[in-house]
């Protein structure tokens, strides 16, 4: 059947690239046209990625929607895209966050053309990393997704934006300085002259020593982007400085890129290195969970609060990966998805409040739920999801990780659970101070979120509730990839 061979994954990628080129051609004055073009070209990847998620044949499993073209003959580089249970949730997440991010920036007036051009470049890189099965292309897309962050934050950001942008860019590209040697090391030592991950992940290609050496480089390199403690310090600063939609894409999607890189490159290619370093991963992840929760307690800036909660939640992903179990992997991937949607909603709500009140300091706000009940509602919903309230998506993810962690590492698991209580405390405190109590008369006249601008928040909230009520929709897909992978470990 001809339609079965339609290159869906490339279509997602090309929709971003074509969107970028179209925007470059439109004159900068036609702002409305640029926004509509962006909306269309961000809608296509979202629809396609959701379609792929549900079209994936779970009974058959393995890699599907495969596209493979030989790219550079002499070095065995392939343009190789495929979907499996690990990357489908990530692709869907990216689609949703991109689309809602574009909608969130609908009011933007400053240098519109460049903003959307950089956004599409960034997202093309993100999609590329998630769908690629070739080491060379993973690295290329990874770097492509990083460097647009600099102009995006430095031009359209707030609060110490130049410092935040520079710090973030240097940190993340320093990570890639560890990744490239590791990739080349694996390429050269495999003796297969290929960058194809499927060929390289066959058992026996690398010796245990090679796996241990490459794994730690890859883990640290990708871990910087995943906000692994103690390399997380760029993350809160960068998130605070970034404009709303960039924070959404960055915290929602880009940090997942780091965790996904650990999974797809480090864990796939160096499973023995993974088992060897798992103890260290668990320690760093636990530190991140505890540290993020406690530092978050002391923050007075709403965006810093979300930034540190991200560090804490990404620690949960790291802890899941460190357990080396099916439940841990399932939980980690589910948490990446759930946290992505939840953080996007948090940043999106804060963005609205900041846009109206021009402040994101908690002491200056207060009683916002009386002034903006709808906008506050979205924030509170997302905050509750972050705490892990049942029937919201994060609950299942955190539950799975903690069950797995408690079995494998009782002490660290227990510590992490305690930190979760602190995390809940600090989130609730923020909600109470910002949205309840005495309302600030200064902001009393401000309008609430109306239907139109509320659409992106509605989509995100719906996704959180949907996957909270029906977690099996997500878990069944991840399971298809994680069970055979864990069973195939040496």
């Amino acid at each position: 059947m001809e339609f079965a061979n339609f290159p869906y994954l490339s279509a997602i990628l090309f929709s971003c690239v074509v969107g970028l080129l179209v925007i470059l051609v439109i004159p900068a004055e036609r702002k409305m046209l640029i926004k509509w073009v962006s909306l269309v070209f961000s809608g296509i990847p979202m629809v396609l990625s959701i379609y792929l998620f549900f079209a994936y044949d779970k009974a058959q499993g393995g890699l599907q929607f495969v596209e493979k073209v030989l790219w550079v003959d002499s070095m065995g580089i392939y343009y190789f895209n495929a979907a499996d249970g690990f990357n489908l949730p990530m692709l869907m997440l990216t689609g949703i966050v991109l689309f809602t991010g574009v909608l969130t920036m609908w009011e933007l007036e400053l240098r519109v053309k460049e903003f959307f051009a950089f956004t599409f470049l960034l997202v093309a890189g993100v999609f590329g990393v998630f769908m690629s099965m070739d080491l060379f292309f993973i690295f290329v897309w990874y770097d492509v997704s990083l460097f647009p962050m600099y102009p995006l934050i430095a031009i359209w950001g707030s609060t110490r934006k130049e410092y935040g942008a520079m710090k973030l860019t240097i940190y993340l590209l320093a990570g890639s300085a560890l990744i490239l040697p590791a990739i080349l090391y694996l390429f050269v030592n495999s003796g297969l002259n290929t960058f194809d991950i499927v060929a390289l992940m066959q058992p026996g290609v690398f010796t245990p020593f090679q796996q241990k050496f490459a794994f730690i480089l890859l883990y640290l390199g990708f871990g910087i982007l995943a906000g692994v403690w103690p390399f997380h310090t760029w993350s809160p600063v960068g998130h605070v400085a970034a404009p709303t939609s960039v924070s959404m894409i960055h915290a929602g999607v880009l940090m997942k890129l780091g965790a996904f890189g650990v999974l797809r490159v480090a864990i796939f290619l160096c499973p023995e290195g993974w088992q060897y370093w798992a103890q260290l991963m668990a320690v760093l992840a636990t530190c991140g969970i505890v540290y993020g929760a406690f530092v978050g307690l002391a923050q007075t800036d709403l965006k810093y609060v979300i930034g540190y909660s991200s560090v804490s939640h990404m620690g949960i992903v790291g802890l899941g990966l460190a357990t080396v179990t099916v439940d841990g992997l399932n939980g980690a991937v589910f948490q990446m998805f759930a946290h992505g949607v939840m953080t996007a909603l948090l940043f999106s709500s804060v963005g609205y409040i900041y846009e109206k009140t021009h402040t994101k300091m908690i002491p200056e706000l207060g009683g916002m739920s009386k002034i903006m009940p709808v906008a506050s509602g979205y924030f509170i919903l997302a905050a509750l999801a972050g705490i892990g309230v049942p029937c919201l998506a994060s609950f299942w993810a955190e539950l799975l990780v903690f069950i797995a962690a408690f079995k494998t590492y009782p002490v660290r698991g227990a510590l992490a659970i305690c930190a979760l209580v602190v995390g809940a405390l600090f989130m609730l405190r923020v909600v109470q101070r910002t949205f309840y109590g005495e309302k600030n008369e200064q902001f009393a006249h401000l309008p609430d979120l109306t239907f139109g601008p509320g659409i992106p928040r509605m989509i995100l909230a719906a996704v959180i509730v949907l996957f909270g009520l029906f977690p099996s929709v997500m878990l069944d897909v991840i399971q298809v990839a994680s069970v055979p992978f864990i069973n195939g470990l040496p």
Partner: protein
Amino acid sequence: MMNLWTLFIPELYCLLMAVVFFGLAMSATPNPRRDYFAALFMAGVGVVVALASVRLEGTLFFEAYRVDLFSQVFKVMLAMGFFLVVCLCTELNGIEERHHPEFYLFLSTCTLAMMLLVSSGELLTIYVALELSSYSLYILVPLRRGDGIDVEAGIKYLMVGACASAVMLFGLSYIFGVTHTTYLVEIIQVLPSVIGTPAAIVGLLLMLCGFFFKLAVFPFHFWAPDVYQGAANQVTAYIATASKVAAVAIIMRVVALSGGNSKYLVDVLVTLSIASMTLGNLVAIVQKDMKRLLAYSSISHAGYVLIGILSMSASGYASAIFYALAYLVMNLCCFLVVVKVAHDGSDLKIAQLAGLHRRSPLLAMALMLAVFGLAGIPPTIGFTGKFLVFAAAMEKGYVTLVIIAMINATISLYYYILVVKAAYLMESDEELPVLPVSIPTKVLTVVLVTVMVVFGVFPHHLLEVARAAARALM
């Protein structure tokens, strides 16, 4: 006899250009437009001639001159570099009008000398060619209209260059003493067997010094920042691109002489490479002048390209050739912006790039891509070049070297980002007018940007050419 001379056509053509400009220099009234269009036309034809002769092979002048794919590929690069530099000369305000024919004359002789250099198969030919190119540049550097900084730069260049030449001659005498011949084809048969002896290794290293001076490798880099700043922008563009490419070629030829099994040579090259990268990148951070920044960045890039050469394998040489081409394109793109923004021929401070995104979005984008390319960020040709170089080094097991080089690449990112920041973020204090960018300049910019991105994403064909050229070398 006739067909032997066809081998020599690109060089003869350069000589013809030199003669033509010698004639133009005789005319009493200066006519910059005539000179410019004559140069543009002849340089354009020069690229075609070089491309047409790319498949030629053979030897000339009692085997002292080798024409092979390796030399011809580099001649194409040199002709392209020359043509692109001439393209930047629409407003040659840095040099007095009556000197314009001389400017083109010495560019032609310098290109001629470099073409001779990449084909030389004999030590004395190498020396003569190298000196001819150096002397052309010694004259070009102080040609700038200005306040004396050009003269200082010219003298500095001459002094360092003369020292490097002397050291190199000394090295040549050692090589001759050890091998009893000046022909490279004979040296390559004798030298690998005696490479363990101190005389051979010292001779080879001293000989390399002359070329390290050209490439501005540590510790022969002192001239670079002052000469870059002191020379007219177009001359700097030429020194930064074509001259570097020729140096890469000849260093490869000489290093290939060792046969690839000298641990001492590799150790020395590794040391120089690391020193060049680190010094160039660290000092570049504090620069305020765009050309000085590019000078220090060129020192660090000399370090990266040495990594490919010191791998001493086919893939290593191929990666260095690819890197040289990538560097040529990226650097020319940077200088295009420098020349256009400082159109009165003055030096360009980084702060003067402020507001470029508004004054000329196209130039700002080109600068951003070129600078990120120099930093080694995909999807540009600069990334692909670094990737190939590092892959070649990794094949030889130089893990530490690759990690050090990557850390250096991260450091370099900081000052490259400062340039992007100036162009995209800063606003100038006074309202600056929109930069007038002519249609040909726009076309040139778009072509350079396209080449940078397209060959970064589809390196396959270019890589095959580089590999074939590297095979011809070995």
